[in-house]
């Protein structure tokens, strides 16, 4: 299935892009993360949370969402 992955803040510095579309198997968030780690090797040194369809999810969550986002630490306010 086709998903959109969005990158923010220092994560976007690592990926050198703010978003991309990826064709992936229906899998878990953690499997998707392995794919991304392989593609962007500096990612593993970064602190981030993952949102699926705008809700934070854990690694063992099933990948169902059309929109995944890698979110570095929040700094609002």
């Amino acid at each position, binding site marked *: 299935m086709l998903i959109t992955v*969005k990158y*923010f*803040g*220092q994560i976007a510095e690592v990926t050198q892009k703010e978003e991309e579309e990826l064709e992936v198997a229906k899998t878990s968030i953690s499997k998707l993360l392995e794919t991304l780690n392989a593609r962007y090797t500096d990612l593993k040194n970064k602190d981030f949370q993952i*949102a699926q369809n*705008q809700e934070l999810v854990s690694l063992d969550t099933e990948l169902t969402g059309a929109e995944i*986002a890698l*979110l*570095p*630490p*929040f*700094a*609002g*306010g």
Partner: protein
Amino acid sequence: MKDKKPIKSVFKEGAITSEFIGNSIYKHQTKTSIGAHNIFLGQVRADDIEGKTVAAIDYTAYEDMANEKFHEIRESAFEKFELTCMHIYHSLGTVKAGEICLFVFVSSPRRKVVFEALEYIVEAIKAHVPVFGKEIFEDESHQWKVNT
């Protein structure tokens, strides 16, 4: 807590000015059931970090999720506290040291409520809203801000 109403954006491009805040206060003077206002303002600090001084913060956000979170915080605050009104504004883009990047404004007939509500809202924003801050030093190098 999903809501299907269109959600008003909380974000404003650049700093929040003192005129904007003053004007927002002014607009509440027709609401004569209000007895107490409480306002939180986040201001960009010129922190010294290893000999370098922060000149500005460049704010970005996962806007759709952030506006949804702001909306959830708003709904939850209205549920918990007897508020007459509530306004939240957050900057995007560059906000210089000394300028204001967050403006939270709550009003109620009575004062006890506004203290509790304002702290609840500000802490929820810091914890749950995906906003990112790039601290730009005077020498144009940068580091990423993390809320504590």
